Structure formats: C-alpha cells, structure tokens
C-alpha cells in the first residue's frame, strides 16, 4: 500500500464573499501523478496555493507524510518538501540556470562553481533532465525554463511537486518530454499534482484525477477507469434551466467579420491562432473557453488595444486593424472587459461615477474645458436603470461593491449606444437579481439591432442567452454552433480541445 504524502481534509477558504474552497477533500499518494480538473473559478489554484504556503485555510486540516501541519510561508512549504512549479515562472532572467537553482538554498556560504554544479548535475542525471547550467534564463526556450523550475524544486529535495497548467506554453514534442520526466519522477517516488484543463493530458499521464466544481470536490476517480465524456460531465455539471428566455430578433447585416486573426503573447506563443468568425446586427454571439484561451486578447484586438500579428478585422466593411483605440471607439465599437480584479481597465478607481462616465465622451466636447453636466446626467441615468447601490454619484467608485462597479462599467458602455458591444464576464460575482438585470439590458440592446459579443463563464447562461456560441481553446476556435443545438457537455468538450466536427461524428452530445 503506497504511503499518503498529502492529505487535505475538509478544507475551506473564503475571500470576502467568494467561497473558493468548500469542504474539499483531496489526497495524493507516493509515486502517483494526480490530476486536478475543473472549470474557471472551481478552486484548483486556491487549493494548491494552500499547499505552497501562499494562503492558509480558514478551516480544515492538511497532513504531509501523515503529520498535521500548518503551512505558513513558501519557505515552510519548501522545508516540508513541497515544490511548486508556477504557470508564470518565478525565475530571474539575468541569472544563469545554476544560479536560479541555488537561489535561497541554505547550504554553505560560498557557491564555488564546481562542486555546486556537480551536485546539480547529479540531480539532473537522476531524473533524466538535460540543461546547460551556465546558460542565462533569458536566453532559454520556454521548455528549458520550465525544466529549470522543476530542477530547482528537485534540488531542494522536494518529494511533492505541484504543476500549474504546465503545458500551456509548450509544443507537443515538449509536452511529451515533460510527461516522460514526470513519469520518471513518479517512479522514483515523488507525488505529483498536475492542474490542467486538457482532458487528453489527464487521460494520458495521470493515475487518478479529482474534479472540482464551484469550490467543492465532485469526485476522485482512477484515470484508467474513466473517460473524457464522464470527466466533462463531472466538470460542467448537469444542465440548469435558468429561464433567461432567449428572444428571437431578426438578424441584420454583417457587422463584424474576423478573418485569420493571430496575436502573440508571452514567449511569442500565439494567444490567438487563426481565429475566424462573423457577427451580425441584432444577435448575441457567446464566447466560451477556459480562462486564458484568448478571450481577453480577442476583446483587446478588436478594440485596438492589443497588437495584431496576422489577419483582418472588418467592422462594417472597414478593416480596423491598426486603427487607434479612439478611432475604433468613434466608429461605434464599445468594449467592457471585467477582469478578475474588476478595476484593471476601463474605470479609474479613485474617481467618482461622473468622471468615469466622462472617460470616452470628454473628447467630443467642444473647447478645452470639460463639462460635467452631461456626465452627471448620464451617471444618474445609468445608476437608476441598473439600480446601482452607492452612497452618491460623487463617491469614488473603488468604495463600491464589486458588483456595482461592474454595473457602472457596463452601464456606461450600453449608454453610449454602440453598434457593436463587446462584454466580457459582465455578471462576474453579481447576485441573481443583478445578473438578470444585465441579461435584460443585453436583450434590449439586441432588439435595437446591436451586435453583441458576450464572453462568459457560465455555460448555462451562454446556452440560454446567446444565439450562437463560439468556443476558444488555447487561442483556436474549436467550434461555432447554434445555441439550440448544443449541450453543456458539448461545450465542455470543445473547451477542452475537441473540435465541433469530431464531437458530431462521435457520441451524441447534441440535442436531437
């Protein structure tokens, strides 16, 4: 019987009103590769961050090697033998690989090259890795950098490894190499936790998989006893009828036509890859996808805020690639992107509602002065319509609750009467009443003939609210389907990388 290296019992963690983890139970054995699966916001990152010492659980217990522990800092986690390999590498670019591996290590005072490098090389040999230790991080490829991260953790003697979305930036060959290394590591007795949303990877490398949904453990299964369909079902849950009542309106002219859109991200990996789709007046096109599949970049490229590597974006027949954001705004394209921290872009936290309403309008006013009267009227109008709770319209908006901040942003965009409304995660963190308020507003806009690009997380909402749904996975379009002919499961599969055509060929996941 294999020893249990990690056991987390009834873990709860709350951030303000958000219950990130609720009574989560999770364990990992010696020598196993354990996958952690779940949608955005399911609580995977929060859970492992409690192992790596960044967060502490509100309640529940953690046992490492059978002993209960209270992990209070990254240093402590390292001492316990837990090694975290982050999605965004924590490496120092100007230093060499050897120097990065030795960072923070408490051994002798002097780091004379020969003996240290020899000891690192021993570790590399033991686990079958190859890296030029004297190369600087900035000169390395992504895959090499990741290997250094892993090496760093192994050099400290970590026996519990956590990898957070490790394959996001790797090529297929590099992914194979990584999995070989992981299997070697497992064979030498390490316990490995791998967070990923890619179902085929779960199937190919893990021994067991735990599915989380909305902060709770849904199930822990042995990988060889399950399949992709079952996992998807567990991940997205049963369909819920929300009674949003999609309205049918006449589809108008072609509003937005995106052809072959490609944009590059970190490490020059494409964050949008040959994206092609059309959007018509009077329709809501939903966009589904795991976080980081390119939704943010899609919004920003259309709004002129992100550089386009290849491809064209036609708005009412005009190619707007290369236009300045102001020119795009002038043409009636309105974008409201609600990031996780809500105040990243689009609003100025220390300013009040009136000044935030001014942001896009002020430039159209005559003269050099700013006239706040129309903005005041706008603020009052939006406030009333969306039932925004605020002490007054003169309060700095960072003092408002998250939901109300979102309403301000969305309200401003809708009030501008755009032709194309791009809205990302507009109901993030809002309660039911407020959410329905937003859906009604969007339906209203649709009836007026506005074309809406709706990026959302809740698959039930997407199916009920949108006319068509496009699914993005790692920057590629895996399918565009009518919302009446697809199920949540089907969407989940596409989000995990299956294409629409392969789903249609396979099992019946489409409604008849």
């Amino acid at each position: 019987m294999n020893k249990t290296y990690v056991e987390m019992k009834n873990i709860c963690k709350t951030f303000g009103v958000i219950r990130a983890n609720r009574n989560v139970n999770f364990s990992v054995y010696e020598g196993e590769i354990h996958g952690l699966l779940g949608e955005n916001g399911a609580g995977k990152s929060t859970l492992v961050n409690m192992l790596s010492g960044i967060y502490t659980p509100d309640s529940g217990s953690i046992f490492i090697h059978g002993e209960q522990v209270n992990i209070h800092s990254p240093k402590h986690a390292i001492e316990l033998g837990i090694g975290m390999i982050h999605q965004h590498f924590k490496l120092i670019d100007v230093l060499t690989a050897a120097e990065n591996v030795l960072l923070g290590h408490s051994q002798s005072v002097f780091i004379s090259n020969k003996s240290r490098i020899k000891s690192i090389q021993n570790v590399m040999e033991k686990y079958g890795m190859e890296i030029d230790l004297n190369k600087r991080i900035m000169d390395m490829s992504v895959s090499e950098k990741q290997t250094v991260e892993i090496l760093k953790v192994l050099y400290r003697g970590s026996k519990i490894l956590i990898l957070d979305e490790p394959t996001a930036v790797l090529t297929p060959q590099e992914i194979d190499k990584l999995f070989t290394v992981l299997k070697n590591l497992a064979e030498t007795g390490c316990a490995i936790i791998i967070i990923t949303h890619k179902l085929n990877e779960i199937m190919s490398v893990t021994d067991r998989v735990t599915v989380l949904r909305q902060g709770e453990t849904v199930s822990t299964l042995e990988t060889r006893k399950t399949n992709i369909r079952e996992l998807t079902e567990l991940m997205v849950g049963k369909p819920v009828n929300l009674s949003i009542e999609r309205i049918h309106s006449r589809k108008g002219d072609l509003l937005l036509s995106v052809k072959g859109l490609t944009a590059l991200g970190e490490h020059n990996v494409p964050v949008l890859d040959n994206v092609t789709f059309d959007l018509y007046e009077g329709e809501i096109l939903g966009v589904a996808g795991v976080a980081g599949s390119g939704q943010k970049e899609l919004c920003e490229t259309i709004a002129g805020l992100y550089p386009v590597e290849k491809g064209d974006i036609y708005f009412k027949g005009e190619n707007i690639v290369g236009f300045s954001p102001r020119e795009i705004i002038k043409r009636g394209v309105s974008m409201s992107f609600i990031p996780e921290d809500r105040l990243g872009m689009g609003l100025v936290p220390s300013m009040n509602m009136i000044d935030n309403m001014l942001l896009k309008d002020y430039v159209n006013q005559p003269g050099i002065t700013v006239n706040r009267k129309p903005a005041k009227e706008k603020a009052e109008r939006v406030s009333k319509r969306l039932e925004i709770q605020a002490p007054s319209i003169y309060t700095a908006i960072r003092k408002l609750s998250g939901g109300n901040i979102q309403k301000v942003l969305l309200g401003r965009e809708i009030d501008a009467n755009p032709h194309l409304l791009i809205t990302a995660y507009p109901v993030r963190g809002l309660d039911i009443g407020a959410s329905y308020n937003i859906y009604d507003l969007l339906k209203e806009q649709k009836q007026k003939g506005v074309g809406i690009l709706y990026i959302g997380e809740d698959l039930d909402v997407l199916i009920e609210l949108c006319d068509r749904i496009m699914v993005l996975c790692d920057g590629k379009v895996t399918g565009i389907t009518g919302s009446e002919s697809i199920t949540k499961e089907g969407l989940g599969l596409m989000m995990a990388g299956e294409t629409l055509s392969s789903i249609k060929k396979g099992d019946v996941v489409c409604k008849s």
Partner: protein
Amino acid sequence: MIPFLKNAVISGTPLTFAILGAMYNEKAGNLNLGIEGMMLLGAVAGFQVAILTENPILALLAAMIFGALGALIYAFLTVTLRTNQSVTGLALTIFGTGLSRFWGKRLMGTVLPESFSRNFRPVSLPFLSKIPVLGPVFSVFLEQDLFVYLSYLIVILSGIYLYYTRFGLNLRAVGENTAAADASGINVTLYKYVHILIGGALCGLGGAYLSLVYVPSWQDNITSGRGWIAIALVIFTSWSPYRAFWGAFLFGGLDIVGFRIQTLNLPISLNQHFLRMLPYIATILVIIVGAIRKSTSHMPPGNLGNPYFREER
C-alpha cells in the same frame, strides 16, 4: 603624472565608498536619493568621535553607525511603511544635511590632533616602486593611506560577496525580481534592511574620509555634491563594484584636473564646469541608450524603485 594619478585615487576614494553604498541600496531594489545625507552624517560623526577619542577605529565606527542610522530611517519608511522611495530619500538628504550642519557648527575650526592624523599618513612597501614596468602602477595605488586601502578591500570583498556567495546571489535576486526571490524562500524584508544599512554605513565612511583625511576638517557641505555624483556613477558603472572603483578613480581625477588645466592655459577652454557635468551627462546617455536598446547587461536591477508586497487576494 604619477603624483596626479595618486591624487586622483585620493580624490576618488570618498566616491568609491559612496558608489558602493548606493550600489548596495540599489541591488536590494531601493533607489536611495539620500546618499548625500548619509555621507554628511558619517562625516560629522566621524569627526566628532575623532576629536573626542583620538581613536581612528572608533571614529570610523561612528561614521558607519551614523550613516547606517540614517539608512535605517529610510529603510523603515520605504520597506515596512512602503513610502515613496524618491521622496523619502530626499527627506533623508535634507535631514542629514541639516543635522550634520547643526552638529558641525560647534566643530568648525577645530583641528584634528596630530596623534590622530598620524594614522592616515601614506603607508607603502618601499621596494614596490623600484620594480620595473609595474613600479609606477604600484606607487600610484599602493603608496596611499590606510583608509584608501580599506576602500580597495571593500571593493574586492564586495566583488566576492556579490558573485561568489549565496548571500550575494540572493541579494541580486531580490533586486531583480522580488516576487521570484520571495517564492524561492528568501526573506526579502531582511535582505533589504541589511543591505540598505550596509549601504548607509559605506556612505558614512565616504563622508568620513573627507572630514578626517581629505580636507581634513569639518566644513558645511563638505561633500559638495559627491553624493549626487555617486548616484549617477552607480548607473554609469552598471552596478558593479570593480567598475565602481574605476569610475570613482576617473571622476576623482576629473575633479582635480580642472585646477591643473587652468594653470596650463590651454587654448581650448576645457572648462572645469563642463568637466563637472560629465558624470551627469554620461549617466543620462547610459540611461537613454539602455532604455532604447533594452540591453540587459546595463539594465538596472529589475525591481529598482518598486515597493514589494506579497499580495493577499
């Protein structure tokens, strides 16, 4: 020529200490504009203790302690209380300048006792200058006083410390990418405090050299802007201790060459004022070129000037 070069070394010594002092601050990620203030605190403290005790070691210790005390205020404000680094540094300069001036008022006109100054006469090994070829080089660098030798020692030790010990490695990490250093288990706060204080102590030594050896007496504003030059030169010498020494040597020389040129009556007006501008112009050029080319060997530490907090969601 040789006497000129010897004097260049002497003239550059306070700069050497100040540049290293600024360097330690910046390697830890803190842009400390209070260098001038810390130098002055060290200068006045060293001088006072020298008068009181006639003991060179105590005087130097006093200089280091007072420089470090100034640095401690800065460190507490910027690291723990997360205040704006530039404004805090300026406050330190104003405070340090004011306090040293206030304190120094009663020391003006006092002369250091002979028993004290004796300790800082040039010390050398007599046969060195007789060696062919290298003789002159030795005599420039190795016929100096003990304080200068101390500066050499600190340069060499700094080089070893930064590049051959794990503390130096961790320090460089803290300044480059504080988040990565934190994730590696390095105690960021401790490293910042310690090295800001070391920097302050070194600046204090630089100031003390002026009041105890170079001038040697107390004057208002004895540093006459050397602290600011040091800030410029840290950048110009790319945060490297060895280059810091040569930078100090170069600008120490430029400082005194002004007077010599005037006596030479050269046809071109190689004005000492333009010469004085050089460190600043050079630094601006380094910054501009560095920003344009984003050349990494001459970039400042990645997290320079940014406060660090481990975020709680």
